[in-house]
């Protein structure tokens, strides 16, 4: 029909113009790294920047930005060349599928290092892509054990993993809280599932009994059905493996259902957002965080002042993502090269006095000497109960 041809031709013309513009753009975007005297270090970062965990992802990104701005302002030398750091930040929506696409994009852009991802569920699939391309990856927050069990020389993390965290929580539940019948809910993500499994193992080893194990997802907001089921099981404690976006409404719904059972979670629960979302229901909740309390960290208070002045309240992992940048730059400076193939070995042998802890990696990429701290929420703040070192 006439209308079709009158529409198709200009449409085809417009499309081809757009494609050509697109092509030009991508050619311009690959600056060849070195003019004779300046290096551009491309550090990539990925975390959920939209969705229920956006506040945590943004927090990670802000920690990285703070470190990069500091280093750029100070001026870094790699070998005898001046270097500036460029941040490439992408949103992985806490979704493993998006994370692998983002990982591929980073690899194609030939980044020199990756700080990410935030969740275990995204970090683990992405790590394969980084390993195949030889790009070193430091995760500031992924705690699932599998991440460093894959034998990838490029995978590192700055926190103790869930094997430790689950054990500490399990022991605390049975020994310190005297809970005998324990119910578990997890959100079926790599992190939630893994942490719950480690917790369950520890509880059983200590002689406790698991009376029920229910499931939800990291997008859900209604837990009344599974909580009602658990209410009928008469548990002494409810453990949740998952993030604060679910833990907060969950604990609120527990109270409206008339369940007075104590609630325990892992590092995903131990956030400022949890307390603000859960309000009164947060009182008495137990949560753990790998590492030591901010006040006890070697550079914690100084970091806190700097960060709050620029970005507001610290959510959770920003001190770790900040340290990640410094560890990377430290390794590059020791190796006098920004080429992953060259500085990778130095990264594995890092000895860095970070603000979170003294950072050194074991042969798997885990943090050496990591600790776990257990906290209780009291009057709107996370109060430290005890720190356990491995």
């Amino acid at each position: 029909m006439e209308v079709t041809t009158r529409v198709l031709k200009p449409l085809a013309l417009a499309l081809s113009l757009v494609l050509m513009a697109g092509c030009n753009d991508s050619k311009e975007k690959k600056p060849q790294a070195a003019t004779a005297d300046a290096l551009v270090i491309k550090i990539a970062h990925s975390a959920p920047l939209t969705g229920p965990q956006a506040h945590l992802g943004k927090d990670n990104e802000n920690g990285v930005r703070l470190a990069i701005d500091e280093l750029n302002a100070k001026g870094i030398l790699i070998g005898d060349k001046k270097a500036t750091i460029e941040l490439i930040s992408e949103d992985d929506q806490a979704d493993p599928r998006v994370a692998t696409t983002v990982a591929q994009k980073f690899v194609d852009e030939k980044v020199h290092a990756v700080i990410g991802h935030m969740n275990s569920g995204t970090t683990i699939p992405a790590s394969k892509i980084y390993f195949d391309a030889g790009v070193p990856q430091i995760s500031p927050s992924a705690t699932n054990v599998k991440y460093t069990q894959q034998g990838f020389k490029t995978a590192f993390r700055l926190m103790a993993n869930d094997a430790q965290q689950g054990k500490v929580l399990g022991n605390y539940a049975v020994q310190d809280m005297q809970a005998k019948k324990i119910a578990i809910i997890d959100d079926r993500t790599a992190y939630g599932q893994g942490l719950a499994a480690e917790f369950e193992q520890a509880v059983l080893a200590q002689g406790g009994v698991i009376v029920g194990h229910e499931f939800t997802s990291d997008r859900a907001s209604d837990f009344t059905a599974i909580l009602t089921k658990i209410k009928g099981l008469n548990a002494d404690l409810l453990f949740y493996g998952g993030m604060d976006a679910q833990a907060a409404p969950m604990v609120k719904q527990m109270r409206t259902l008339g369940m007075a059972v104590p609630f325990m979670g892992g590092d995903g629960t131990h956030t400022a957002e949890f307390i603000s979302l859960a309000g009164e229901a947060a009182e008495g909740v137990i949560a753990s965080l790998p590492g030591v309390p901010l006040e006890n960290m070697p550079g914690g208070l100084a970091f806190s002042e700097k960060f709050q002045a620029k970005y507001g309240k610290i959510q959770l992992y920003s001190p770790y993502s900040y340290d990640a940048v410094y560890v990377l730059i430290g390794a590059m400076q020791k190796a006098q090269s920004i080429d992953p193939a060259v500085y990778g070995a130095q990264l594995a042998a890092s000895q860095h006095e970070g603000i979170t802890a003294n950072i050194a990696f074991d042969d798997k990429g885990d943090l050496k000497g990591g600790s776990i701290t257990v906290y209780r929420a009291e009057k709107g703040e996370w109060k430290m109960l005890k720190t356990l070192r491995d």
Partner: protein
Amino acid sequence: MEILFQQIVNGLIIGSIYALIALGYTMVYGILGLINFAHGEIVMIGAMTTITLLNLLVSASLGLPAPVLVVLATTLAIPVSMLLGYGIERIAYRPLRKAPKLSPLITAIGVSIVLQNMAMIIWGKNYAPFPAILPTMPHHFFGAAITDVQIVIIFLAALIMLSLVWLIQRTRLGTAMRAVAQNPDAAKLMGVNVNSIISMTFILGSALGAVAGVMVSANYGQAHATMGFVLGLKAFSAAVLGGIGNLGGAVMGGLLLGLIESIGAGYLGDLTGGFLGSHYQDVFAFLVLILVLVLKPSGLMGERVADRP
């Protein structure tokens, strides 16, 4: 037994909310043959606007009791949703009245995406907490715990649905809406202003959606820019379950879907011997939907679509 009763109560609460939202979908489909995918976002914007207004009212320290503040904030937020619904109809759907069915459908999806992102720009991507001013102490009866907010949700939803039925069956506006739903051309010949009736339908549906949005955010204590998508999907499925275009069907479908979800999540693990866990809650609900549609394609109470050329 108490646990089962609690699950039923839970199901009725969420079911009432689904029913309210489903009414919006079903009214528009009955009149225009269009699935208004943007309706979930109207629910969301109603919720977010109410929370913003409520935060303003609370910080103004007016000294009024909490329920009055919530009613005030909701009453101010409803016209916003109504305006939005009217605007969407005029801008996105009316020009496509004569176009093939696919165009308004895709447009609806487009409007939904625009609204979601607009909400993210205005309110940010974080979860917005509902101000904790309402009482949360549960009342217990027959072993089930229910809060004041939840009791209000169930009764208010029932009241609204009954009022809607009265409107449709006993007023001139309602008769005009039924006429347009039955046969728009014949209605036009009978002197009904079809355009204004269609606008009225959108406005009414959006008002219901706004109230439903407030209910959801008051019940769960939070709202966020992407909450409309899943809610809309489930409410639409509820409308189809009960029979699309059929108001009674929307109500029944909503309540039924709520109950199935609640009881399904509670007993799925036991029913399947641990093979399927409670995280298959949504799968279970949608499986029931598929089953009903395979056996009775027009939905449980029969669909009501217009006699349209």
